[in-house]
Every structure is written in C-alpha cells, then in structure tokens.
C-alpha cells in the first residue's frame, strides 16, 4: 500500500525543479544506479541492437561502417540456407514435442506419488533430484559414453538381455530420442519439486469432503488434484517449451548436431554463424527469429499466469 502512495506522489515532486527531486530521490536513484548501468549495457542495449544488427552487414572494424542491407540477412538464413535453417527449426520443434511426450507427465506422476509415500519420502525426493544438481556438461559427456554404439553401457545391456543394440546416437531416428531421454533424466527431478510444492497448497478439506462422499482415489486425482495443480502444469509446460527452444549444450557436446544434422538446433546454427563464419548480421537475424518465437511464448505464459492469478 505504501508503495502506491509514493508512486502517485512522484509526478508532483518531479515538477518542482531539480534540487527537491534530488534530495527526494537521490538515495533511491543511487541504489538503482548499478543495476541501471548493467541493464543498459548488457540487456537493454543488446536487445535493442538485435533489431539493428539483423538488418546490417555488421562490421567489427570501426573504420568501416556497418552497411544497411534490408532483409538480406533474413533472405540468407531463410531462403539461401533454407534446408539447414529448416532442419534446425524442425529439430528444435521435434525436441519440444518429444520432450513433452516423454518428460512432461513424468514429474506430475512422481510428485503425486511421492507426496503419498509414508515410506522413504525424503529419500525419493533426493534420489530424483540428484541428476538436476549435476552439471549439464558432466551429464552430457557421461550419457555420451552410456549411449556409445555397440559397446556403451546401454547397448551392452541391450545385447546382454538379448535385444538388438540400438546405436542411439548414430541413427537419425534415435539420436533425438537419446537427447530427450537424457534431458528428461536430468530435468524431471527439479520439475517434480515444483509440483510437490504446488501439491502442498491443495486444500485438505477438498480431499476430506471427497472421501466422505465416497470418491475413489482415481476420482480424487481427476477431480481434485489435477484441477488444483493445473495452473502450475500449464506454466511449466510453457517454461519447458521455452527452455527447449534454446537447447545447445546437449547436442553440441553429445552429437555435434549429427548424425546428418539430425540434432542440429537453432542455437547451434547461431553459434556456427557467429564463431565459424563470423557473419554477425545473419547470426543476429536468426537470433531475432528465435527472439520473436520466445517472446510470443512468453506472452502466452504471462497471459496464462495472469488469468490463473498467480
């Protein structure tokens, strides 16, 4: 409440010259200064620059000014590079879809189940959370060994129990699935913790009333638990999609985008344009496209959060 009164008084104070505002706001501004400085340099300015560089033939040399090239960069990344760019976008979307199929409901199940456990409750929480604590690079390299065709742990076990070795990362059909499985292994625990927190806020009276009315456990899950955690589920779905669009480290280390670009992602494309071709304009143009997709998703996200009043 206090904050609002201060905010409303602001314009009146600002009108009275400079000395009064400085006395009035000096301390607040001084406290804001470091953040404002950092944000200007490393957030607002680069964000703004995305919209500039994407339309330029960017030059690093200060003596050669950057040239405006209109939509040329976009023509390059969308039409000239069409097959590579399309592959990158397709792969990312495939990653999103597979990730949702394989990994979206798993944490929901884990949270609901673990929340009911009278035995080993905290053991389960920790056991499922451990992969999330490990660094992504560590997990990715380790799984690369596990996935090694024929001789890796997974294929060895497959052969041992009499199945065909899969050769996870060398087949176009399974490489993406391999990445998704690893991502799920790594990510499910942390998501589960968020669901567990959401479950704590489900009113106990609802369960009590339902039980008195003779609702079965399945009915209680369907009509109480799931509707109650639905807002969180929607938010986490969008967050998972946003996160997956930016995937880089996993395919970069595990498959280098292969086989036959089967796991090549949008961010890897940007990386290649940036550090292999030094083509900043085109890298930025692709970045802008990613930017637009992510902002679109974030707008949906904030709509959802606002509507659900969290």
């Amino acid at each position, binding site marked *: 409440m206090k*904050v609002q009164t201060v*905010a409303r008084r*602001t314009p009146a104070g600002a009108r009275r010259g400079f000395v009064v505002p400085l006395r009035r*706001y000096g*301390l607040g*501004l001084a*406290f804001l200064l470091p*953040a404002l400085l*950092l*944000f200007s*340099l490393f*957030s*607002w*300015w*680069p*964000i703004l*620059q995305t919209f500039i560089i994407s339309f330029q033939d960017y030059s*690093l040399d200060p003596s050669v000014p950057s040239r405006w090239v209109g939509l040329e960069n976009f023509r390059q990344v969308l039409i000239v590079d069409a097959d590579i760019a399309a592959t990158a976008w397709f792969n990312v979307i495939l990653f999103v879809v597979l990730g949702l199929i394989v990994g979206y409901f798993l944490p929901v199940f884990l949270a609901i189940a*673990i929340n*009911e*456990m009278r*035995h*080993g409750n905290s053991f*389960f929480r*920790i*056991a499922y*959370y*451990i*992969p*999330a*604590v490990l*660094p992504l*690079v*560590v997990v990715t*390299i*380790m799984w690369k*060994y*596990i996935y090694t065709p024929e*001789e890796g742990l997974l294929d060895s076990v497959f052969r*041992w129990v009499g199945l065909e070795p899969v050769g996870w990362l060398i087949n176009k059909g399974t490489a993406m699935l391999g990445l998704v499985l690893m991502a799920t*292994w790594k*990510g499910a*625990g942390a998501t589960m913790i*968020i669901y*567990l927190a959401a479950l704590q806020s489900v009113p*106990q009276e609802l*369960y009590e009333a339902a*039980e008195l009315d003779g609702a079965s*456990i399945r009915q209680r*899950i369907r009509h109480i*638990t799931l509707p109650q955690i639905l807002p969180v589920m929607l*938010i986490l779905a969008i*967050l998972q999609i946003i996160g997956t669009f*930016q995937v880089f480290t996993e395919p970069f*280390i595990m498959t280098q985008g292969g086989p036959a670009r089967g796991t090549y992602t949008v*961010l890897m494309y*940007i990386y290649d344009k*940036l*550090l292999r071709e030094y083509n900043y304009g085109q890298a930025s143009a692709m970045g802008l496209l990613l930017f637009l997709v992510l902002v679109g998703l974030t707008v949906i996200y*904030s709509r959802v959060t606002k509507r659900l009043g969290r």
Partner: protein
Amino acid sequence: MATTDRARTLVSDVDLRSTRTRILYWLVFSVLCLGAVTTVVPLLWGFLSALKPTSEIFGYPPTFLPKPAARPWEWQWGVYAEVFGGSQFVRYFWNTFLLAVGCWVAAIVPSAMAGYALSKLRTPCKWLLLLLFFMTLMVPFQAYLVPLFLTVRDLPLVGWNLMQVFAGYPAIILPAGVSAFNIFLFKSFFDDIPTSLVEAARIDGASEAGILWRIVLPLSYSVFAVVSIFSFMGTWNDFLWPLLVINDNQWKTIMLHLYQYDLQGDIGKNKVLAALMIASLPPLTLFALFQKRIMSGIAMTGVKF
C-alpha cells in the same frame, strides 16, 4: 504406520486400511524405487567406471563393479588423484571458483540494491522502472546472444573489449549482474518487511545505511542464501557463454576443460569420467549442505538452475 503430524493428502490413512489400496500403495512404492535406481545408477556407473580401463568401460558383457575379481581396495583408486593432480586441473577448479565469486558479487549487490530502492526508497517513475526490468524477463539471454557478444567485444561509449581484459572474465561477471528475476526476488522479499519497522528506525534517527545494515539485511538472510546458491550453481555449470568469451586456455573454466578433455582422443575415458565426477563435487557438496534451502528455493521461485 503413518506419522500423525503428516498433512492429509490424497490418500488418507483410512484408505490404506483396505487391502486393495495397500497393494496399490506398495506397487507405486516399488515403481518409485525402480525409478530411483535409474536416476542413481548412471551416476554410480560413472563413478565406478572411472576405476576401470577404457576397454572395460566400453566392453561386452557390461560390468558394473570394476574387475569383479578384485577387492574394492585393489581397484584403481589412483585415477582420481592422478586426474586431480594432473596437468592444470586444480587451476581450472580455482579459475571457476574465482569466476563464481565474481559472478556472485555481481548477482547480489546491484540486484539487492535495486530491489531495496524499488521496495523501500523513493524513486521517480517507479512503474516505468519496474516495467523496464520486467520486460527483460521475457527475453532469455540466448535470444540476444549475438548483440551481447558484440557488446562485450566493443563496449558502447568507451569501446573496451572485455574479452581481452583479464581473460574475458569481466565479460562473464558483468552480465551476471543482469537479472530482473533477482531484482524482483529481492523486492518482493523486502516488501514483506513492514515499512513501519523501517520508518520507526528512521524516526529514531537511524541513517539509511544503518537501516539497511542493521534491520533489513539481518531479516533477509534466506533470500540472500537462495540467490547465492543459485548464482554459484549457475556459474559453475555454465557452458555456452564461457565457451564464447574465454579465449585463454590458461583461464578456462572447469566445464570448458571437461569438454576439451573428452575430445582429446589419447586420454583414457576412465580419466575423463574421473574428471567428470570431481567436477560434480562442488555442486553436490553444496546440495548436501543446503538441501532443504535449495529445494524450498526452487519451490519458491519456480526456477531450476
């Protein structure tokens, strides 16, 4: 069998008196146990495989324990010491710690100050500031990766190349201070500290610094702890940005080292696995120490690092 202080959940203790529910309960319990095996086994496999020769790591049939015939104390434990003591490993460790400290200061100080100003001090156009900070939450840094890269290469107005100052560390540390999320976290925490408390101190003649130092900070231990832990984990685990801006091999972080170590063909994969395990120790230790706080931090913020 149930503890009495347990909050009532989906399945009540009354439900559990029926045999069918009991069977279901133990069935789910076994499934969870099986799942827990799959999360723990790869880690354990990595830990134990560091003790095997490469031919055994990638061998058929798969082994879990190294050289099943040998006793545990006869396993090649030396590999861990060898990797840790080898070449520059400790150096990369310290590099990353150094970087983490820098990023920690950058993540804490400006955000806490801004959060305090937005919560308890008078600032002009507060709504505009909030909006400007809030906007950046919508754009993950990967989306403006390229301009950010060009910015640290050629800082506006002054024209410094941060990538050539101290091995590019400022290019990582300074952007680490940009977190609208942290600002809002601090702000909402400071909002919960009653303004009357601050005003009472002001009336009693306490200076603004004194209010911050003696009243606000002691009350905000938990939010500082959460931001600190997340900041350390984030820096320790970061890969893409250090890959882009650190050019000096002497100063690379542990994650960059692991990436390159794995690519060196002439090194036994057991050594790589040992390196992976050692590099996981700091986050694992941190987790072991602050397990409750980390979990509640994730639940509180909805953010996984």
